[in-house]
């Protein structure tokens, strides 16, 4: 049975989530907090009724609980009812006694680690999630012998219908180590940073699913407090002719928006944060009047996608809409047309709007009434699907 990770898009990339009996590595560069991905998945699984066994050799248990809480995941209750158990391999390493329900007295001994994992799995109901945070630290402490144990761990999770999730920070290990990791795990999620042009951010991608090497999308994300892993789109451009309703669209979609406007006309920019079904995006709404085109040209750059807003009652403004797309250098980006003002009596239907714009079937057109919010969320959903779906 596949179980959701709680992280949007990732589930689709993993063909539905993590399967019982499967092994997954969360492979990340040291500058990204890979463990937070694991917390997100843990909390989601706990919330869905599963048990989680969390092996830590990098932090004290209360630090994990506090870190998770800062992201909005309160896991105390689950710990009290015994659905969340810790295996402490951290404090024993410092010469103190273990603090969790289970402890590894000698964290440099892969044999002992394996036997504690086995005991913990035995004492939890089947279908639980076993997190190793982190495999790279275990590798540092035990040496490569710990990788020889991976086969045993894989057998254990098969036996108990659990799923194994190992956090692995790549501190610059030899290539054989990376190859062994890639070979062993059935699923591989990779977290890296991108520095492309002016986009500086973190992305996740899936390198392997069910033992099969795959080419997947690179999905930008941010860690939000609260909220955890959110797919993050730094710029969606909202453009269109004068008085088409762009500002209303930005405000209808945003949880928080600011506008620079004078007498109901935007003179500089509408800017809004959108939180939507696990996605997080920033909207840049441009001004429609021709005399502000230099600003449109400047602010249009680096958009990931475009919402083109047109007034469905004014087909004579459509050529201007096309011109704006071109000026914003947004032609060819994933795009959706909001055929706005559908509440007005002489509004063209979305299909008529498409035809008049000269767009093909590949550009979705939705009818909207931005002032009441009708259709705008549906439109955003379609746009996000175009960017990340299928």
């Amino acid at each position: 049975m596949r179980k959701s990770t709680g992280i949007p898009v990732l589930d689709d990339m993993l063909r539905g989530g993590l399967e019982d009996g499967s092994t997954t590595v969360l492979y990340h560069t040291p500058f990204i907090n890979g463990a937070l991905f694991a917390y997100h998945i843990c909390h989601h699984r706990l919330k869905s009724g599963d048990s989680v066994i969390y092996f830590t050799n990098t932090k004290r248990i209360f630090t994990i609980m506090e870190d998770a809480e800062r992201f909005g995941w309160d896991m105390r209750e689950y710990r009290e009812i015994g659905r969340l158990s810790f295996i402490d391999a951290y404090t024993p390493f410092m010469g103190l006694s273990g603090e969790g329900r289970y402890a590894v007295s000698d964290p440099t001994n892969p044999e002992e680690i394996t036997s504690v994992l086995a005991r913990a799995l035995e004492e939890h109901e089947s279908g639980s999630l076993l997190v190793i945070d982190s495999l790279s630290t275990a590798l540092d402490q035990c040496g490569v012998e710990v990788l020889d144990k991976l086969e045993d761990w894989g057998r254990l999770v098969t036996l108990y219908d659990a799923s194994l999730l190992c956090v692995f920070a790549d501190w610059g290990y030899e290539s054989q180590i990376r190859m062994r990791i890639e070979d062993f795990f059935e699923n591989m999620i990779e977290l890296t940073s991108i520095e492309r042009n002016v986009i500086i951010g973190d992305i996740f991608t899936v390198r392997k699913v069910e033992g099969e090497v795959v080419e997947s999308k690179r999905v930008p994300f941010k860690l939000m407090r609260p909220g955890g892993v959110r797919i993050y789109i730094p710029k969606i451009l909202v453009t269109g002719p004068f008085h088409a309703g762009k500002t209303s669209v930005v405000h209808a979609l945003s949880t928080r928006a600011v506008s620079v406007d004078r007498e109901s006309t935007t003179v500089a920019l509408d800017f809004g944060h959108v939180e939507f079904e696990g996605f997080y995006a920033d909207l840049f709404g441009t001004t429609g009047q021709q005399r502000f085109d230099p600003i449109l040209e400047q602010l249009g750059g680096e958009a990931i996608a475009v919402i083109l807003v047109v007034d469905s009652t004014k087909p004579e403004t459509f050529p201007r809409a096309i011109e704006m797309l071109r000026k914003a250098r947004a032609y060819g980006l994933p795009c959706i047309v909001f055929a706005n003002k559908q509440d007005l009596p002489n509004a063209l239907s979305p299909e008529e709007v498409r035809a008049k714009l000269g767009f093909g079937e590949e550009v979705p057109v939705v009818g909207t009434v931005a002032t009441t919010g009708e259709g705008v969320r549906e439109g955003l959903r379609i746009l996000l699907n175009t960017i990340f779906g299928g």
Partner: protein
Amino acid sequence: MMEGKLTLRDMLKKVLMDLNATGEVYASAIVSRNGLLMACEMPSDIDSRTFAAMTATMVGAAETAFSELKKGVAERVIVEGREAKIIAMGAGKKALLVTMSDPRANLGLILLEMEKASEKIRKLLGR
């Protein structure tokens, strides 16, 4: 085992931290000219991404206004308020450096420190 390698983001952050440490500036950010936040060192109550987008808009508008006058390029934008002073200047072709400081802070000193920082940023961004 740790490679002593900083990411570009860490480097940009360090430039900003050094700038803030000069004492004249209490918040700073590097923003792309098209409004995306690249790095910031700001108090958490400021919405840094909105600030970034608006700063880029402000500079873009100022530059356009200025070039319409045919008087060359705008070097910087300074906004003086009763409670703060915002200064934005170019940092290479693609980026802007923005700072916020006390209205009574020494402008000359801030500009000097910002020039130095913006030169570093230009080199770090490789353009």
